């Protein structure tokens, strides 16, 4: 495949949500055909400019996925699959992007707060953020407040995303923010919260920077904070 064919194939496979050759995608008989990972590797070997892979392959693919979602042709699982495929190759592209002088949109630390086992929403946010070009570190579920703060100290993220699904556990969000303040870690960090019982009012009350009602809002908010476009861009 030529460079432009590879870019076009990457775009197509983002639309198919195919991370690698084992993925079935949406259309029939795709198993065994190269997916986004294999195509990006081949493009890098063939010295296709990383900028072109990112902009005309991955980003353009995600843009088209977003457009299909807006038109109700695509659904959340399609968005997630595409974002997962893109997120998976972002790590591969990272050293090349650094070489070209392109910096990551930023590091995002994610956690479900203490005593809360719910992680579907947090995982979706993680996949979507990776797909949008953020570096994501996921601390998992029921993470003790002290562990979250230690991870912030160690990872030095730009953003901290806290998730809670229970009104009994959401108070740990406030504890986390208070402890970050105590340790002098709060000022360089944007704290974004989400989860069913949370609200913009609650975010304001506990001193979070933003509340996001869903994964799209999370990507949009993070993009705005990073100075970029919305979820589709």
């Amino acid at each position, binding site marked *: 495949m030529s460079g432009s064919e590879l870019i076009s194939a990457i775009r197509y496979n983002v639309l198919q*949500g195919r991370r690698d050759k084992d*993925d*079935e995608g*949406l259309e029939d008989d795709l198993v065994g055909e190269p997916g986004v990972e294999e195509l990006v590797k081949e493009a890098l070997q063939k010295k296709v400019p990383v900028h072109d892979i990112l902009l005309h392959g991955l980003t353009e693919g995600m843009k088209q996925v977003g457009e299909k979602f807006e038109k109700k042709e695509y*659904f*959340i*699982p*399609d968005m*997630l*699959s595409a974002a*997962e495929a893109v997120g998976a190759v972002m790590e591969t592209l990272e050293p090349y992007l650094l070489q070209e002088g392109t910096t990551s949109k930023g590091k995002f630390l994610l956690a479900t707060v203490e005593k809360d086992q719910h*992680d*579907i929403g947090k*995982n*979706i946010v*993680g*996949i979507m953020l990776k797909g949008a070009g953020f570096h994501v570190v*996921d601390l998992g579920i029921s993470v003790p407040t002290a562990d979250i703060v230690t991870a912030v100290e160690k990872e030095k993220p730009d953003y901290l995303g806290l998730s809670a699904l229970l009104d009994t556990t959401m108070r740990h969000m406030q504890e986390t923010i208070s402890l970050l303040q105590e340790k002098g870690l709060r000022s360089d960090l944007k704290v974004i919260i989400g989860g069913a019982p949370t609200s913009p009012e609650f975010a304001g009350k506990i001193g979070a920077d933003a509340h996001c009602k869903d994964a799209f809002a999370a990507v949009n908010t993070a993009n705005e904070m990073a100075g970029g476009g919305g979820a589709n861009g």
Partner: protein
Amino acid sequence: MDFFGREGVTVNPYLRLRDKELKTIHSASMELLSDPGIELSHEEAAGIFDKAGATVTKSERAKGTWVVKIPEKLVLQALETAPSQVTLGARNPEHKLILDGETPRVYFGSGSETNNILDTNLEEFTSTSDPDKKLKFPVHKRRRGMVADLCAAARLGEHLEHLDFFIRPVNIQDDDISEDSKDVNKFYACLNNMTKHVMAGLTDLNQLDNIIRMGEIITGGPEQLKENPVMSFITCVNKSPLQLEGDSTEKMLSIIKRDMPVVLSSSPQGGSSAPIDEVGMVAQINAEILAAVTLSQLAHPGAKVIYGSVPVRARMDNLHDMYGAPEFNQYNIDCVQMARYYKMPCYSTGGVADAKVPGIQATAEKVFSHLYVCMAGPHLLHYAFGLLEETQTFCFEQAVLDNQHIGMVKTLMQPPEVSQDNVSYSLDVVRKVMNTSHRLFARYARKRIHSGQLFLAYPFEGGEIQDETMANVKAETQRILAEPVDHLPDATSDQIFAEIPGILDRIR
């Protein structure tokens, strides 16, 4: 057979009656047929029964009426010759229906000759607690049904995905339509506006040959019509309790003589013209239908007849037919099982609301009935679209809602797909997902989502904290009614109008 028509939905039937109970009801019906027997006001039919060995005596109650005591062996003999498979044709062969007494394949259809149309209009109201808040609510108006409504109902029915066959849902009461021109107008209005199977009763027996001629012109000739009966008939032969009515008996005998498919129906009312108790009701209606089946087979062995059960319950504050009562559905399920016990195709009933307007009551009454009667596996489930107010009113918007709900019922009835291939695929998916950090199966839902087989969302839901269903249904109804349909070719209509008198020019 070189075609396969509409798929319908084949169910794994719910068995309300056990085998022993089916036999008990059969025996009870046989007892009724021999004592008191049936009353019959049709001389030729009395002669047919007499010749076959039934005990026929003149009734003392009314002149020109006979009492016929039918021995079980005559009934069993009739059930031997009554076909277990009847094919109903359609202008578009893809819409053919195969009714097989041994296969519980369900088709949903409309029905049946209401006098009123319910118009639904959305009007804006101002909230009394918040004058800035404008809300839209449906305002309903009832009016007399006209032939233009029947044409529109057929166009709507053509486009309703889950409507498998069509029975005129509205009585045509135009001033320029007389008793003797009603049949030709109603059949033409249906057949010119849809390509699905059309069923109807006959208003005037003198019009039977005109209707059959219309079918012959549409299909290409007498043989073609027999191969592809684009229309069939419904005769309510029985007047409950246990009487074969003269005019309808004459219609039935005339229809089977012409080798056209016909439903032999009975519609007793539990609590007034039949026992209210389930077993009594079912024993009686079963006896009534079997009496008609027996007569049909004695007159023309092999006649294409369909077991037509329309048992209803009396509403006790006005003795109207009642369809929302749970007992109505129980009666109907039992009849479906009786028809299958005899390996006969079954025309059953469900999905009528007693409610006067679309809404919560109508939906509850209809959906319980659509689902429950369907579970028994009738072949033709009529009355299922748009009927309100105990079948007195037809509402286009309600028919669109019913189409949605029937689609959901059909999905519920789909059999599970348990195969080694499916198991292997699913286990593979679970293992793959367990190897991911996020443990999400969403990716593997996509093929299903895009197959068109997955329920995505209730199509009429609104986005506000207010019921927007009717506004959305109204918009959808208007959209469907604006869609074109495949009318009869001009040459066909020309020939129909040239040969068959009485059809109004304005419905061409």
